[in-house]
C-alpha cells in the first residue's frame, strides 16, 4: 500500500509540473493554482506514504535507492512549497517541479519492497543525518532551479528576443536573491548533515572521518558552496557567476548522492542500490 502511494505521487508531480510549465508560457493564474494544489496533494500523500512505511518497516525508510529517490522528491516539493508561500515565486515551479518528478519517477521504476535493515544503519542517527542532508539538498535543488531560470532569462534579455511573458516574470535580482537565500539555509543544513554523519561514524565505525568517497564528495560539495558564499559576500559574485556555481554545486550534490553509491566503492554502500 505505502509503496504504491510513494509511486503514485510521481503522477501528481508530473501533472503539477505540466501545470506550472503551462503557467510560465501563458501566465494563466489558474494553472499556477492547479499546479500548487497538485503538488500539495502529492506531497501530503507522499508524506502519509512515508509515515505508513515507517511503521511497517520499523525504521526510517530512507535506506534503499528507491526510498532515497522518493524522499528526495518529497523534500524538494516541501521546500519549493515553503519558498512559494514565503516569496510567491510561482514561476519557479516550472523549474523545480520537473526535478521532483524526475526523482519520483526514477524511484517508481525501482523495486520498492521493504528490506531488512543492515546492522550499521540501526541507529537514531539515521533519521537525523539523512533528513538534514536531504532537506539541505532540496534547498540546493531550488537554488539550482532558480539558477537555470536566471541563465535562461539573462540570455533572453541579452538577445532582446524576449517575449512579453518575460517582462512579467520576476526580475533577475529576485532570482539572485533566491539563490542567496538558498545558500544561507542549505549551507547550514549541509554542514549539520556532515557533522551528524561524523558523530554517527564515530559510533559505528570508530572514526569521525575516514576519507570514504561519500564523505569526500560531501566535503567537495561543502567546499564549492563555501567558495560561492565567499565569492558572493566579499568579491561580489552575483547573478551569472553565482548561478553557474549553484549549478556546479548541485551537480556535485547529485554525484555525492547517486554517483558515489553507483560508481565508487566505499563504506556507504550498504546495499546493492541499483537492484
Amino acid at each position, binding site marked *: 500500500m505505502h509503496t504504491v502511494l510513494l509511486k503514485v505521487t510521481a503522477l501528481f508531480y508530473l501533472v503539477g509540473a505540466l501545470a506550472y510549465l503551462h503557467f510560465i508560457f501563458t501566465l494563466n493564474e489558474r494553472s499556477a493554482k492547479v499546479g500548487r494544489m497538485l503538488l500539495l496533494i502529492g506531497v501530503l500523500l507522499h508524506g502519509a506514504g512515508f509515515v505508513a512505511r515507517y511503521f511497517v518497516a520499523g525504521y526510517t525508510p530512507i535506506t534503499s535507492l528507491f526510498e532515497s529517490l522518493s524522499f528526495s522528491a518529497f523534500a524538494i516539493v516541501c521546500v519549493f512549497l515553503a519558498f512559494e508561500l514565503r516569496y510567491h515565486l510561482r514561476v519557479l515551479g516550472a523549474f523545480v517541479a520537473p526535478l521532483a518528478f524526475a526523482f519520483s519517477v526514477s524511484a517508481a521504476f525501482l523495486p520498492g519492497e521493504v528490506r531488512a535493515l543492515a*546492522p550499521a544503519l540501526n*541507529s537514531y542517527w539515521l533519521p537525523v543525518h539523512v533528513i538534514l542532508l536531504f532537506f539541505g539538498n532540496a534547498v540546493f535543488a531550488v537554488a539550482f532551479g532558480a539558477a537555470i531560470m536566471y541563465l535562461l532569462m539573462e540570455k533572453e534579455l541579452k538577445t532582446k528576443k524576449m517575449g512579453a511573458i518575460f517582462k512579467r516574470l520576476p526580475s533577475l535580482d529576485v532570482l539572485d536573491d533566491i539563490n542567496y537565500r538558498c545558500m544561507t539555509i542549505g549551507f*547550514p543544513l549541509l554542514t549539520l548533515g556532515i557533522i551528524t554523519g561524523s558523530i554517527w561514524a564515530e559510533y*559505528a565505525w*570508530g572514526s569521525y572521518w575516514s576519507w570514504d568517497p561519500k564523505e569526500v564528495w560531501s566535503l567537495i560539495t561543502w567546499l564549492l558552496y563555501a567558495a560561492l558564499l565567499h565569492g558572493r559576500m566579499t568579491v561580489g559574485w552575483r547573478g551569472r557567476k553565482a548561478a553557474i556555481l549553484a549549478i556546479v554545486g548541485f551537480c556535485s550534490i547529485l554525484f555525492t548522492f547517486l554517483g*558515489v553509491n553507483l560508481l565508487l566503492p566505499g563504506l556507504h554502500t550498504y546495499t546493492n542500490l541499483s537492484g
Partner: protein
Amino acid sequence: MADEKRTLSPMDRVWNFFISVKLAIVTLIVLAATSILGTIIEQNQPPEKYHKIYEDWAFALMDRINLFDMYHSVWFLLMLVLFTVNLSCCTIDRFPKMLKVVRNPRTKLDENLEKTLSLADRWKKKGTLPEWAGKYGEALSASFAKPKVTEVDGQVHLYAETGVASRFGVYVTHLSIIIIFIGAILGNVLGFKGYVNITEGESVTKVPVRGGILMQDLGFTVRCNAFSLETYPSGQPKAYKSDLSVIDGGRETVRKTIVVNDPLQYKGIWFYQSSYGQAGGATARVMAARKDGTHEDMLSLAPNEPVPIDGYGIVRGVNYDQNFQGNGPALQVVVEKPGQPAASFWLFQGRADLDRQRADSMIFSFGGLSSKMFTGLQVAKDPGVNIVWLGCTLMVIGLIMAFFLSHQRVWVRLAQGADGRVEVVLAGSANRNRLAFEKRFEKLQTGVKAAGQ
C-alpha cells in the same frame, strides 16, 4: 594605486597575499577539485591490486605523488596548511577592525551617514527637543532596543541596535575550523586506530596499527567471551554482538556486550563491533571418562589432529556424518594405544550409553561439533575527538549567527527647526536580510511616529 604598490615592503606583500579572500576561494576550489582524485583511485589498497589496474609507469608516477594515500600526502596537507594560514590571517586582519566598529558604533546620524542609508523618513513635530527625544526613546525601547542618547551642537541623536552577534558569526565559523583541525592533529599524533580479530574465549593485549606495521600495547587485556549472530529469515545478518571483558590488573573491570553502533570504551580506548567470521574449522567436543569414574576429560578434536590422553593413548577424530546409519549425527574416532593396533569406531551424539558396550577402560561420548566464531573489532584511541566536537558545535553556532542574525541599526536625529518645530529624521540599516528589515522598519516608522499622540 600604482604608487602604493611600489612602496609596499615585501613583508606587506606576503601579508596581503595571505589576507586575500581570492586566495581563500582559489584554495577552496583547488581542494575540492583535487579531492576528487582520491575518490576515483581507491585509497590504501595493496600494491598488487594497483599493479593489476595501472601500467608500471603510471603506477610509479602515482605512487611518487602519493595518489594511493593522497589525503595524507605532503602536498595535500600543505594545501590544508595554506588554507588554515589564509583563514587565520584573514581573521587577524579583520577581527580587530570589526571589534573596533562594534565597540564604537556611529551613534550620531550625521549628514554623511544619512546619505548612505536608503531607509529614512523625515517629519516635523510641534514641541520641545527633550520632550520628543524622551518619547521616541521610549518608543524605540519598546519596539526595537534601548537607544543610546547623544547630544551635540543642539541636536539629539538616538542610536539603537540589535543582532550585533551577526558580525561575529564569520569569525566564530573560521575559529571552529581551526579548532577542528587542532582536534584532528591531536588525534593523529596522540591516538591510534587498529583492527583486531579475537576468537571466542581468547584475549588480546596488543592490536596492530598502521596497517599492521606496529603493535600497539593496550595496557590491559580484552577478552571475547562469546559472539552471537542474529539473522533475518532471509539469512541476512540482523545484529551481531560480542560479549567483551576488560581485564585490568588481574581482574575483570568491565564487561559489556557490544553491537554495531554501541561500542565499549575503557581508559579512552574504544572497541567497535566491525565484523565477524568463523575461526578455523569445526572441532568435535568429546567427553572421555574412565570407566572406574576416577577421571573425566573434555576433548576438543580438530579433524585428524591426534590428542593424547595420559595413561591411555592417542585419540583422533577422523570422520563426521550428520546422520550415520539413520541414527543421527556421529563422529568416527581412531584410538591408538601403545603396543596395540589402532581401533576405529563411531560415536553417536548424546549416546554415551552405546559406547559403554565397547570393552575398554575409557568411555567416550560425542557432544557435537562446535565451530568457534571470531569477532572483528575496530580499536581506536582519539584524544582529539572532543575538541573536534567542540569545533563542530562552534561551527553550527557561527553559521547560525552569520546567516540568521542581522545587525540592525536605527538612528533618530532631532533638531530644532527654523520654524520652531522639531525636525526629526529616522533612519536604519541592516547587514543581512534587508527585505525583512524593510518590513520591520516600516512598522517602527509607524510606531515611532505614533508615539506620544
